[in-house]
């Protein structure tokens, strides 16, 4: 394999990995606060792509107006879901709330099939994002530059929010013990709502990037990215935002390199790689790579 080809593989990997990282942040954040694996995260992600599809294709509104509205809509969808499916179970055993999350996931998927139809739709792709740039031997979509930058911006912004603001302090307190935090005068419901809003907004941003990169959308499209990003979050240490980013990159680059270097007979098994990696990491580091107890749990 020549160096040029290797470089192309590496950029492909980074591009995919940063996308995983972006979605994994939202996953890990909700877990960090609520100790709840939000199985509906992938489906909230899916809804965001449909919001954008209808905004741009059906109503013909330009993307730069639609995209911010999509992020707001998705955030409110996430907050509604929290109020409807998770809040009534706040004091129930953890397993009940997890089952409620799985139910919410199926509900969203089937709702999407009924409302939007099962047929794949083409996501709008403005030239600003999908144009191709030739860098020496490497061909890149412009999007490939944007995604890692967006991921890093949100990583920094989130870390700041959590560690240096009052809302962040409330979030950290709720994550430690929501009953005590409530007694101390923190509005627990509001804090959790905000967390879900931010988590879902991140899912929306991830979804928009995903739709631009892989421009076809369908009601079950959130399942695989949801699983992969969950794996990325676990590998990095679930609850740890920096870990989620690291896990996303490891998974993305790993998947691409696996296909790149293995004989072509095995290229159909790339998804298996993600799951094997998860098992191996859990065997040796049950808390994930950055999931030490001392590191800040969001």
């Amino acid at each position, binding site marked *: 394999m020549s160096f040029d080809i290797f470089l192309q593989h590496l950029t492909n990997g980074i591009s995919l990995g940063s996308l995983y990282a972006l979605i994994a942040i939202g996953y890990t954040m909700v877990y960090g606060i609520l100790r709840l694996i939000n199985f509906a995260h992938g489906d909230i992600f899916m809804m965001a792509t449909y919001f954008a599809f209808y905004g741009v294709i059906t109503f013909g509104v330009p993307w730069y107006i639609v995209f911010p509205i999509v992020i707001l809509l998705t955030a409110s969808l996430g907050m509604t879901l929290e109020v409807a499916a998770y809040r009534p179970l706040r004091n129930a055993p953890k397993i009940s709330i997890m089952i409620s999350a799985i139910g919410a996931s199926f509900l969203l998927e089937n709702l999407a*099939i009924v409302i939007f139809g099962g047929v794949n739709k*083409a996501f709008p792709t403005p030239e600003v994002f999908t144009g191709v740039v030739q860098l020496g031997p490497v061909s890149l979509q412009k999007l490939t530059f944007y995604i890692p930058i967006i991921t890093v911006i949100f990583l920094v912004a989130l870390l700041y929010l959590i560690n240096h603001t009052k809302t962040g302090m409330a979030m950290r307190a709720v994550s430690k013990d929501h009953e005590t935090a409530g007694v101390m005068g923190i509005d627990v419901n509001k804090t959790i709502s905000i967390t879900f809003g931010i988590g879902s907004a991140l899912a929306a941003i991830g979804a928009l990037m995903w739709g631009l990169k892989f421009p076809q959308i369908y*009601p079950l499209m959130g399942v695989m990215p949801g699983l992969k990003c969950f794996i990325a979050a676990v590998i990095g240490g679930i609850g740890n935002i920096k870990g989620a980013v690291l896990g996303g990159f490891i998974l993305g680059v790993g998947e691409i390199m696996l*296909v790149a270097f293995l004989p072509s007979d095995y*290229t159909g098994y*790339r*998804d298996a790689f993600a799951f094997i990696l998860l098992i191996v990491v859990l065997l040796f580091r049950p808390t994930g790579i950055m999931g030490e107890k001392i590191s800040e749990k969001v």
Partner: protein
Amino acid sequence: MKRGLSILLTGIIMTSVALSGCSGAKKADSNVIKIGVFEPMTGANAAGGALEVEGIKLANKLYPEVLGKKVELVIEDNKSDKVEAANAANRLVNKEKVNAIIGSWGSSLSMAAGDIVKKAKVPTVGASCTNPLVTQGNDYYFRVCFIDPFQGTVMANYAATKLNAKKAAIIKEVSNDYAVGLAKFFTDSFKSLTGDQNCIVEDSKYNTGDQDFTAQLTNIKAKNPDVIFAPGNFTESALIIKQARQLGIKAPIIGGDTWETDEFLKIGGAAVEGATFSTFFATEKPITEESKKFLDAYKAEYKKDPAAVTALGYDAYIMILDAIKRANSGDGEKIRNEMAKTKDFQGAAGVITLDENRNAVKNAVIKIVKDGKFTYLDTIEPKK
């Protein structure tokens, strides 16, 4: 001696199983002929399934009666999933007690129903499933389209003679019987045409539902093939072609009949310009009287040009009606026996003559994407 005995015993058991299956399939209402349809209405193949159902419904509208009885369509969604396909076929056979079945878009889905319809003796007609295994060894499965050994040869011929390709790369959907079969027949044929055992420079695989193909495509780019053969669903294929062009791959990309859907054009956009594939029927070349009738009715109903698989769905329906007419009965076995004799039947997508394996022998059409539309390129006749 012992072996003879065991074969005899197996035979007895099999017959009794078949008979018991049959006894359960009593027709509920003798004043209606029920035709079951199992097609993907949701999931990855939904667009393809929808196109076939359009054709079936249109045929039902034009020919609503047979033997003086009303024909009722019972449509089941097989959700683009092999297990669901078997469930859907089971429901049609056992619960709805249909007289005949049409389906399904996707060879894997059709195969999942094979044993069920065979056991229940319900004649089933595939519209566009092209893998040879669908009808092989199953007396109750028929189809109105050609099969992949022919389709693979057609595309290999096109690559070798029209494109003058010496080296080809393959990227196929590994969990899809249709794609794997087509890739194999293409490989065999391309090897014998070029006389070069190493003419396939890369044989890449991917999974149904994958979205990122950059790794496989970068490997293909490194081998610099003259042509890329990419059999698979239109959804993944459109993304593959898009990503290939983004990676700067200039080689022509060719594929099979599954590409002919609006979604392929919409998802692929400008990138799929020049994509070439074999299919069953071109609206520019109506073949029979029935073709014209179908085209006029379709345009009046849907205000657009039909896809090839829509014509095949239509053909599957009218071929079943023809067999029921000749059998003069709604009985599965009688319909089957008449259907097997189908010869020179005038379908919308061409003249249908079934061979001994219940496959239609007919011409293939090559189409290319030009100015964002599927455009007729060539007609290839089967070898006699």
